[in-house]
């Protein structure tokens, strides 16, 4: 099993080799060409945006989106000031009440104001990482077991193949109902909405990891397996010393694919289930239908893309760090 990331990596390498005869060319490749690409894109965007009329006004160009970044940031600042005032008022109120009513258990409640754009980014990141880690905890052991045992592989294969292509939006209503039924505490420590998004993310990013791990484990070099047999390694030791190190590159390929899926799924899930996060931000702005809405949505799109890119890059770094097979860990 190979993934599309390998192919693009190879093409890129090939291109690098073609132009790497001189330093200036390499510099051109690294800086000038991407910069040109971005500039052309911005230009096309600006021109295109001017020609698209929506019922909410013109489609936002780069300048409008940039302004919204500023507006979103100052909203965040204002909200922080309000938050400070909120805590101040609360402390005063608690003190007043304690003076009247000494039995009162004064406590400081969390700020009740709305999450700002920057808070929403944080929420989304925490959710996606929790869902992803939960999936990894399930998928990697499962993948190893499937990879080691052809019988288990044959048994699990149909289920994996059927569930793999399922969209998060199909899972979401089921997850929501089950979570409401099972997780029925009056005063939950972790918000239900968080659990809904997290489980949906987990369900969707489980499969690439299971498959890649299983393939990695199944395709461990015969020689290595023979070494293990000769040394008569016990089962656990066999996994630890031979199987895991040998399949690390594939496991990480699976994890990288999964994290990409997880991020996409999360935005959709937040949008549909109104769970806090960037997806909800986009949906709320769409519902508002103000003249700034499109620019704000576009700002969110840029941020979502940028975070997705950063997540992918950090997985790549991890992959490089852990992997002995540097060939699989290209761009």
């Amino acid at each position, binding site marked *: 099993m190979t993934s599309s990331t390998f192919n693009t990596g190879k093409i890129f390498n090939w291109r690098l080799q073609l132009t790497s005869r001189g330093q200036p060319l390499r510099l051109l490749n690294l800086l000038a060409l991407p910069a040109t690409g971005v500039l052309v894109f911005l230009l096309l965007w600006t021109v295109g945006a001017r020609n698209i009329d929506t019922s909410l006004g013109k489609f936002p160009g780069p300048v409008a989106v940039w302004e919204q970044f500023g507006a979103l940031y100052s909203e965040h600042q204002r909200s922080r000031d309000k938050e400070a005032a909120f805590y101040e008022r609360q402390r005063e109120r608690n003190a007043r009440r304690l003076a009247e009513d000494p039995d009162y258990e004064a406590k400081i409640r969390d700020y009740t104001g709305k999450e700002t754009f920057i808070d929403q980014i944080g929420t989304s990141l925490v959710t996606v990482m929790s869902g992803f880690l939960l999936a990894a905890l399930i998928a990697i052991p499962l993948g190893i077991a499937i990879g080691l045992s052809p019988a288990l592989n044959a048994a699990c294969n149909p289920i994996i193949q059927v569930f793999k292509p399922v969209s998060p939006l199909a899972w979401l209503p089921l997850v929501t109902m089950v979570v*409401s039924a099972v997780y029925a505490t009056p005063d939950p420590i972790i918000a239900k909405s968080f659990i809904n998004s997290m489980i949906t993310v987990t369900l969707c990013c489980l499969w690439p990891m299971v498959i890649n791990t299983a393939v990695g484990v199944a395709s461990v070099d015969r020689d290595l397996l023979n070494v293990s047999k000769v040394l008569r390694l016990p089962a656990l030791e066999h996994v630890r010393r031979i199987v895991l190190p040998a399949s690390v590159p594939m496991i990480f390929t699976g994890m990288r694919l999964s994290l990409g899926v997880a991020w996409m799924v999360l935005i959709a899930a937040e949008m549909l289930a109104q769970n806090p996060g960037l997806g909800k931000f986009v949906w*709320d*702005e769409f519902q508002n239908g*103000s003249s700034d809405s499109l620019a704000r949505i576009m700002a969110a799109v840029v941020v979502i893309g940028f975070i997705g890119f950063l997540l992918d890059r950090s997985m790549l770094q991890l992959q490089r760090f852990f992997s002995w097979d540097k060939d699989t860990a290209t761009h």
Partner: protein
Amino acid sequence: MRWKKPFGTLAGAAIFLSGLLSGTATAEAVELGYPEKEELTFGFIKLTDMAPIAIAYEKGFFEDEGLYVTIEAQANWKVLLDGVIDGRLDGAHMLAGQPIAATMGFGTQAEIITPFSMDLNGNGITVSNTIWEQMKPHIPKREDGLPARPIKADALKPVVEQYQAEGKPFNMGMVFPVSTHNYELRYWLAAGGIHPGFYAPHKGDISGQIDADALLSVTPPPQMPATLESGTIYGYCVGEPWNQQAVFKGIGVPVVTDYEIWKDNPEKVFGITKKFAEQYPNTTIRLTRALIRAAMWLDENNNANRPEAVKILSQSHYVGADREVIANSMTGTFEYEKGDKRPVPDFNVFFRYNATYPYYSDAIWYLTQMRRWGQIPEDKSDEWYKNLAKRVYRPDIYEAAARSLITEGLAKAEQFPDFDAEDGFRAPQTHFIDGIVYNGREPNAYIDKFPIGLKSGEKL
């Protein structure tokens, strides 16, 4: 204000009694205790009439009561109602019909009550530009060439007939089966001779399109303009700012406001579960106090605070529409067509005319419309209507909240109905577009007055 323990625990019982006992004796007896539940989450739909909740939060009225409230926008009315029923939300901005229908068991069954009516008026019916052009020849004109208002559905009837002749369904949007908008749209259509269709829940038909000339279906309020623009529906009835939004976007024309269909009609309510009110009596009274103060603030000094309210509502986590769109209706005008802006000072009423007092007769009007269109499939006695209204509408809680505000000098007695004399029924109301008089004391007699709709004894 010193808190005395026995009074705190007795507050609930005392309030219950205040409905039974008469007069001033109970007024001073209750000293309001601290709230039992301090952290609350309230839901709302992005509509300008959610203003009392936003104002109570922003102006610190909730905090004054020791309540720490989180306000969350909800995707649609069903999600909102389910949230209140399953406890995810402690209370919410609701359609007047929702607590009534829930208590009755039409849709999800749950005992929901309302101690506070949120506003009067505030809705409009908008049609697409195409339909407007087709309606125009049938609308009488004023001397200056602008259409004479109110526009009746008589002008729409020939258009609907033409669509029917061509075999095309005439689709319109409203926001929820038990929404004010559904009943207002139906009222307006039926007053013009267009049949909006019956419900038959006992036969499993809850589409409300039996015998219909115009087919009504549900669309969430913020999506109305987009759905109209895409051509899925030809018109809709919705609250602000979604009618003004159609004008600003140039995609539709509001033909009539609900103020013209029924002057000063009760609109949204604040809904909580009966269980919540019983479990947290002080919290219930306190949140009602905060909402009353917010409503007073909104109507104070002849709407002087409205511009500030508009600024608050236009924030993206409340209504979020452009300021001028919200301002259009909130500050006493209504723009029907581009350039045809007319004064409607009472388009949004939050406090005056006793707007916040939960009148039984308001609940009964909704029940009569549910019966008229078959959501209540069989005959009910006048007593049944009154008893159900009394289960859902709770002027006793409102009275306790108002009286304590008066005692503390935060409000004046003359701002409220005379509680000692008030029986919860408004005097017969005359300002309907078809001239039919509504008397809440005689629901069955009222239902029989309509030319279109089920009458007593009739069953589908």
